[in-house]
C-alpha cells in the first residue's frame, strides 16, 4: 500500500478564524518535506489534519487513496510528534516506548532505546523531571523510532541544544536512507535544516505560498549585485524580494528563474549573480506579513 498524501483545496476554520485557506499539495513516499512558516501560519493545524486530530472544514484529504479520518487502515501509519507539555507526566520514556510498541505497526523498540541512549535520555525517569531539551529529544526519538510511513516532526528540535540537533539531523538522513517514508519537518528555523529537505512547502497566513522541490526553489532566487542603474534595468519586471544599497552599489534579491540568455546578459554588464538561501527566501516571501504586524 502506497501511502502518498493528496490534499485538495483544504480549508479549516475554527473559533471564527480561518486557519487554512484552500491548501492543495501532494506528498510522496521517500521524500523529506520542509514545512516552513512563521509562528501562527497554520503549520501545526495542517499537520494535525494529516494525523486525524481534526477534520478540515472543506476540501478533501487522502492518504493512500483513502480518507484518513477515523480510518484504522491509515491512522496507525501516521506518526505525529510535537512539543508536548509533560509537566504532569509521571510516566517514564520506557512506558511510552512500550505503548508505541503495542500500537504502532513499525515501531522499533531496539532503535528507540539506542537513540535514547545517544540522546542521553534516562529511560526510567518520569518525563516531567526531564529538561526541556531532553523532552524534545524524547519526542524526536518517538517520532523516528515509530518508523511510520508518514512521520511528522513538528518543531520538536526547538529546545534541543546544537550538538543534539546535529545528531538529530544526521539521524533523519540515515533513517530516510534506511527506511524511506514521507518525513515532514516543520520549522521556522530554516537555515540549519534546509539541506535536509527534498521539497519545500511554505505556509503563510493559512495559505500555501510555495510548494516546490528544494533545488528548484533555491535556483529561482538570486541576488543581483552591481552598479545601481544597471541593476535596476536588469531586474525591471522581475519579482523583487528585497534590495540594499551602499553608495552606488546595489544588491537586489529576485524571485525569478533566470534564462541562459539573462545569465549571459548579466555577465556582459558586469553584474554579479549570487545564490540566496532558503532562509532569505522565506524571510522575504513572508515579509508583507511583518508589515501588517
Amino acid at each position, binding site marked *: 500500500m502506497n501511502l502518498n498524501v493528496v490534499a485538495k483545496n483544504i480549508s479549516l476554520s475554527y473559533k471564527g478564524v480561518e486557519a487554512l485557506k484552500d491548501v492543495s499539495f501532494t506528498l510522496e513516499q521517500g521524500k523529506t518535506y520542509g514545512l516552513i512558516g512563521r509562528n501562527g501560519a497554520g503549520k*501545526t493545524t495542517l499537520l*494535525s489534519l494529516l494525523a*486525524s486530530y481534526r477534520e478540515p472544514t472543506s476540501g478533501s484529504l487522502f492518504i493512500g487513496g483513502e480518507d484518513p479520518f477515523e480510518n*484504522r*487502515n491509515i*491512522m496507525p501509519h501516521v506518526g505525529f510528534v510535537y512539543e508536548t507539555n509533560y509537566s504532569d507526566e509521571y510516566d517514564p520514556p520506557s512506558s511510552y516506548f512500550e505503548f508505541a510498541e*503495542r*500500537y504502532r*505497526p513499525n515501531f522499533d523498540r531496539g532503535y528507540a532505546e539506542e537513540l535514547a541512549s545517544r540522546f542521553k535520555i534516562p529511560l526510567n525517569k518520569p518525563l516531567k523531571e526531564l529538561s526541556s531539551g531532553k523532552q524534545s529529544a524524547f519526542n524526536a526519538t518517538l517520532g523516528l523510532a515509530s518508523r511510520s510511513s508518514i512521520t511528522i516532526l513538528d518543531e520538536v528540535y526547538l529546545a534541543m541544544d546544537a550538538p543534539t540537533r546535529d545528531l538529530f539531523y544526521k539521524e533523519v538522513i540515515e533513517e530516510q536512507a534506511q527506511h524511506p517514508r514521507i518525513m515532514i519537518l516543520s520549522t521556522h528555523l530554516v537555515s540549519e535544516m534546509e539541506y535536509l529537505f527534498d521539497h519545500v512547502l511554505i505556509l503563510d497566513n493559512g495559505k500555501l505560498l510555495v510548494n516546490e522541490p528544494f533545488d528548484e526553489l533555491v535556483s529561482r532566487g538570486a541576488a543581483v549585485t552591481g552598479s545601481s542603474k544597471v541593476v535596476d534595468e536588469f531586474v525591471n519586471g522581475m519579482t523583487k524580494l528585497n534590495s540594499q544599497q551602499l553608495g552606488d552599489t546595489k544588491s537586489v534579491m529576485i524571485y525569478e528563474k533566470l534564462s541562459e540568455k539573462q545569465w549571459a546578459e548579466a555577465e556582459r554588464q558586469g553584474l554579479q549573480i549570487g545564490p540566496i538561501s532558503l532562509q532569505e527566501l522565506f524571510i522575504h516571501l513572508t515579509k508583507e506579513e511583518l508589515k501588517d504586524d
Partner: protein
Amino acid sequence: MTNGTSNIGKIAKDLFFIQIKWALWFIPIVFAVYLIVPHFVKDVAELNLHFLSFIYQPTKIFMLVIGIITSLYYLPYFVSNGITRKDYFYGAAIGSATVAFGIMFLSAILAGILELIGAFSNYQPSTSTMEFLQSTSSIWIIPILVYSFISIGYYISGWMIALGFYRFGGWGGMGFILVAILYINLTDLIWEGHASHPFGWLNIPFPDLPLPVSLIGALIFILLGFMVIRKVSKRITIAME
C-alpha cells in the same frame, strides 16, 4: 504493512489493567475501613452490611472519578497513537465494564474469606444487603450483577463530564455535569426507588420495580449512556497539549 484489524480487544485489556491497578489500592482501603469503622461508629455497626454492599457506595464515586480521569487522559493519548475514536470507545466501554465487575468480584472474594473465617471462629460477618435488594435472597450473584451495573452507570457519567469539558469547554462542561447528575439520579431511581446526590431529599413517587424490570431498565440505561458518549466523541477534535 497495514494491519487494518480492530484493536478493540487490546485496548479493552490495556484499559482494564490500568484501572484495576487503581482499584487494587481502592479495595483494600475500603476493606480496612469496613473492618475498623463499625467498632467506633454505632450507626454503621447497626447497618450490619455485607462487604459487597458496603463497598458499593464508595465504588460509585470511584467509578465516577476514574471515568473522568481515563477519558480526559487516554482518549487523546490513544488517538495520538493512531487509534480511531471508535476503537477507543468500544475498548474503553468493555474495559470499564470489566473493571466494575472486577471490583465486585474481588470484593466478593474478600467477603467470602470473611465468611470462611466466620465458619471456623467466633467472628460473625455482617450479612445485610442494600435495602433495595432485600427482596432477593441472593447475597452473591444478584448483588454482584446489580452493583456492577450501577457502577458502570457512574463511570458513564464521569465519561460524559470529561467529554463535555473536553469538547465544549467550561459552559458545555457544566451542561454535561447536569446531564450526568440527571443520568445518575435516574439510574438510582430505577434501583433504590429514590433519587440520590444531590437530590436525595426529593420525594419522587416511584414504584418499587421487580428485579428483572430493574435489570432490563439498567441495561437499557447503560446502552443509552454509551450511545450519548459515542455520539459526542465520534468526530471529536483532539487538543494538542
